[in-house]
């Protein structure tokens, strides 16, 4: 996803001089091509996350489209007030790009994990959130970001994710999809590969859920999603805290829409910050496995 981002943003910035890429002294080797081709649209702001975010807001106020790129926790939590006051409240179209969604940087320790990020950004006014599952969805997300004039948050994995979006339905065109009564599994990000493994287990048992990648998150897209799939059982799988992520969003939106959902959730509620290991190990330890997804889904649909 990192490389897809780098390639696509370089192409877009070559056509659109308002795009500025601001990095927080991170991205070694990943963004070199952008920096070399577009030196006037590239800024390394050093290790100044807070000032970097306010500066990006100032640039956005003058018509630039700044993309602030850093590792998961840094461009969110280190500078949350700057995002709130200078980006969100001032309505400046800054795009925060966080690489290392969820437990991507597992071995680096919990300083570098991002498992409360969607909750934090979602609580702000006017933000659109993008959590793609692979390179193709990164490209779609970037096009949507530039077409919008709102602040946005692009949540990227680390790198090396498999292309899986061709095997999933997209939240973007869910209204026109044929929805069956077996129910749906909704997810954000690269956890989708585990969801697809779970789907195989389910298909072997004669259950064929819709698997829907929810990469474009805002109140409108969530409401459309609920209207499309909310009459059948829903399972939400996410590499995020149980608080404030996709699962919360769906339940809260359904409440606002006065709809009763049959919903089950798998997230990082059983993740222990004292455990260290790579992403795959940590997800296994937290019980976010294909087997558990499959078993819980069967339970949800009464099989």
């Amino acid at each position, binding site marked *: 996803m990192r490389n897809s981002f780098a390639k696509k943003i370089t192409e877009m910035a070559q056509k659109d001089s308002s795009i500025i890429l601001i990095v927080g002294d991170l991205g070694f080797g990943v963004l070199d091509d952008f920096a070399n081709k577009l030196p006037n649209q590239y800024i390394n702001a050093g290790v100044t996350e807070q*000032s970097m975010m306010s500066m990006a807001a100032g640039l956005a106020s003058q018509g630039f489209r700044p993309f602030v790129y850093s590792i998961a926790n840094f461009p969110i939590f280190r500078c949350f007030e700057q995002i709130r006051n200078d980006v969100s409240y001032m309505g400046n179209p800054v795009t925060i790009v966080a690489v290392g969604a969820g437990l991507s940087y597992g071995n680096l320790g919990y300083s570098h994990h991002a498992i409360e990020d969607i909750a934090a950004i979602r609580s702000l006014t006017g933000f659109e959130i993008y959590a793609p599952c692979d390179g193709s969805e990164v490209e779609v997300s970037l096009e949507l970001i530039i077409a919008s004039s709102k602040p946005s948050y692009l949540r990227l994995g680390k790198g090396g994710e498999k292309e899986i979006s061709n095997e999933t339905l997209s939240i973007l065109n869910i209204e026109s999809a044929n929805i069956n009564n077996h129910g749906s599994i909704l997810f954000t990000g690269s956890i989708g590969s585990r969801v697809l493994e779970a789907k195989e287990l389910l298909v072997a048992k004669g259950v064929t859920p819709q698997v829907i990648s929810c990469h474009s998150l805002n109140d409108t897209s969530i409401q459309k999603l609920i209207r499309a799939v909310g009459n059948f059982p829903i399972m939400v799988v996410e590499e995020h805290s149980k608080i404030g992520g996709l699962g919360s969003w769906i339940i809260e939106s359904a409440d606002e829409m006065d709809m009763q959902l049959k919903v089950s959730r798998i997230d990082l509620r059983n993740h222990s910050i004292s455990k260290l290991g790579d992403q795959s190990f940590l997800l296994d330890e937290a019980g976010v496995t294909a087997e558990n997804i499959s078993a819980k889904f069967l339970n949800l649909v009464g099989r």
Partner: protein
Amino acid sequence: MSKKSIDIARNSRISALKMVNSAKAAHIGSSLSCIDILSVLYSGVADIRKPVESRDFVIVSKGHAAAGTYSVLATSGHMNLELLDTYGTNGSELGGHVTHSKNDLITLSTGSLGHGLPYGIGIALSKKRKSFDGRVFILMSDGECDEGTTWESALLAHQFKLDNLFVIIDRNGIQSLSSTEDTLQLEPLAEKWNAFNWEVETIDGHSHPQIENAFKSSRGPKCIIANTTKGKGVSFMEGSVLWHYRPPSDTELDAALKEVGGNQNEK
């Protein structure tokens, strides 16, 4: 220009005192401290009404000086004077800290210290990248120099060679609970900014000619340390921590207005 800015400053002191009395609001000392600086800027030294290609920007990063800021904006003709009467009332568009709402001339809502400088760097950098003229003026409090973003930004502004950026530090020596030096020693403040490769000029922050003169030239990002008196113009407020918070009673307002050359019945 000075005659005009001196009139603006006098009228603004009168307005600000009336506003905090009526709203029972805090921070009059902070407003009186920087009204001269703002009056010079908004009297036309900062040209905030030109087209974007050449206009100046002013950011009041010490957002608690809201009564002073709104007063200067209104008395210098940039904002409707009648709006001042709404200060502190329900439904007002004038926040207790500088709030950007319908007035585009307020560049940034502030109130949390340490935001104005990096935001202003973004605007100054935008001007550079677009080859636009115009300057960015950022009024900061001295207590604001405690903030980490102040020094992050000091590094950034020099790195980007922003000779269109002016920081004015309202050096009244008093922060929320005590003197700046008893809280976290700032001195030698000029040397600190100098060590960050900024041009530094120290002036009397109540002398309009000195303020105006300090904006005339710069060799890079420029930090103007404006020595001021908190509560300037009202003897019993001057140099006092108490008036960081206390709104004047009606009696105190009368006494204060006499000192700044107004009376309560004067609009």
